[in-house]
């Protein structure tokens, strides 16, 4: 049967999660790329590891604790960027190391010391998306989708020219904080399918691909969401048939799209140059 992959309940949940995550991750990622904060998702992914470990320790749902801990981490990093004397990249480095260290320490203290369990959070897994996870993932994805839609113009203004945005009366610090929290939430809801170590790729690579082809911000936004959704869903389906980690497959697929887009961009550029010469 062609749609054999749709039969198991875990696959239905994984596919739904992949679809909404693939759609939403680039919608947030586009602002990170524009603001030159492409590695922010990685930093927050490491902080989310502490949240996952806290979930193990408290014997509660790790996705929920990861959302809370990563959001707090996002607010802290924005406060450091806005008011501290530490530059953005140093603040992110502190997140990287602090997040991993906190995660490893808390896992050591918890009774669930299973490496297999932890690996599913780091690299994604099809079978581990629970009913509670999928409800949380869909609910938060819907919020992120509409938030990016509502704030699209303001976030564009902020990321393109923050000084102009400030003079225009846009609450620059508040919006930066909202963007950081949206990044944290996206990272944590995506970790069940893509994995914490690879989730940032789903936020950035579809955007990098779309910007090779599109010439407008709206076009880049729409195309990157489509690439993200297609990459995530096709990665999960392929993972089902070959019994591979879905996160790695999703990333390989979107990288393939990126390489193809570079070729396409070079071809259209050369063609337009030829037409100009004629």
């Amino acid at each position, binding site marked *: 049967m062609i749609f054999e992959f749709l039969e198991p309940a875990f696959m239905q949940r994984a596919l739904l999660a992949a679809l909404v995550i693939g759609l939403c991750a680039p919608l947030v990622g*586009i602002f990170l*790329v*524009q603001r*030159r904060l492409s590695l922010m998702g990685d930093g927050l992914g490491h902080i989310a590891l502490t949240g996952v470990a806290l979930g193990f320790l408290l014997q509660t749902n790790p996705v929920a604790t990861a959302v809370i801990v990563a959001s707090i981490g996002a607010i802290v990093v924005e406060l450091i960027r806005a008011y501290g004397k530490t530059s953005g990249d140093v603040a992110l480095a502190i997140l990287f190391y602090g997040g991993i260290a906190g995660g490893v320490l808390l896992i050591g203290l918890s009774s669930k010391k299973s490496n297999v369990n932890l690996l599913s959070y780091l690299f994604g897994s099809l079978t581990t998306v629970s009913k509670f996870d999928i409800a949380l993932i869909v609910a938060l994805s819907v919020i992120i989708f509409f938030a990016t839609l*509502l*704030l699209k*113009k*303001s976030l*564009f*203004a902020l*990321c*393109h*020219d923050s*000084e*102009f*945005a*400030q*003079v*225009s*009366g*846009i*609450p620059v610090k508040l919006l930066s904080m909202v963007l950081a929290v949206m990044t944290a939430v996206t990272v944590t809801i995506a970790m069940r399918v893509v994995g914490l170590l690879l989730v940032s790729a789903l936020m950035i690579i579809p*955007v990098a691909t779309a*910007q090779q082809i*599109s*010439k*407008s*911000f*709206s*076009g*880049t936004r729409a195309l990157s969401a489509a690439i993200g959704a297609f990459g995530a869903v096709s990665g999960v389906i392929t993972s089902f048939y070959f019994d591979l980690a879905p996160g790695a497959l999703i990333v390989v697929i979107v990288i393939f799209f990126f390489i193809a887009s570079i070729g396409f961009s070079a071809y259209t550029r050369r063609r337009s140059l030829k037409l100009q010469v004629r």
Partner: protein
Amino acid sequence: MQVKEALQVTNLSVHYPGRIALDNVTLGINSSSVVAILGSNGSGKSTFVKACLGLAPIHSGTVSIFGTQFSQFKDHDQLGYVPQRIHDSMGIPATVSEVVQSGRLSHGWLRRFTQEDKEKISHAIEVVRLKDLENDSINTLSGGQYQRTLIARALASEPDLLFLDEPTAGVDLATQNVFAEALKHLVEAGTTVILVSHELGPLRPLVNRVIMFREGGIVFDGSPDAEAVDSHIFHDHPHSSSKPVLGWQV
């Protein structure tokens, strides 16, 4: 009749680590005037504009816009700002129209654009003569065309007080002329314009007051026709040893 002051700056100082960028500056600018702020690199002219707009940390002193202290100022749609050309190699494509749209956000950053907003955006693009390129990516524009886009963005908000920080620096003469024409429209509509520049160029006929900065302070405040203005333009470049033209206050 008392002329309303668009900008009043009192004892304004801006300190950066290791240097004083602006030192105890006091001045008032009347509504509907066009004021050029001249000075060499590091003279404090750009810092002055940034401090007036809340973009530079004020060490001491006050800034009032249309009679309201800047900290209490909420009517952002009255303000326009064209920054020094921002380094734009972000890579994310955006069209001229999308960038100019940002200018209307000062009228409300969460609301949907109305037909009036769309008309103002379209008009601003027309004024800077970029209508043919409105759907082109800013990544493909020349320096002058990109600068015109930033000017259109400021024009789209229809400000009552417009700050321009070296809007014509490094752009071609055609762009300078287009800019002078756009500025003329604004001046006729009664907009107060504060223009930071190294030199006046084609904008000279529009300017009715010149303020010259040197080492964070005002060294000249008077007519654009004064001899001191020309001596600044032709001799007071960054490495010049010429003395400040003290005593020319008008």
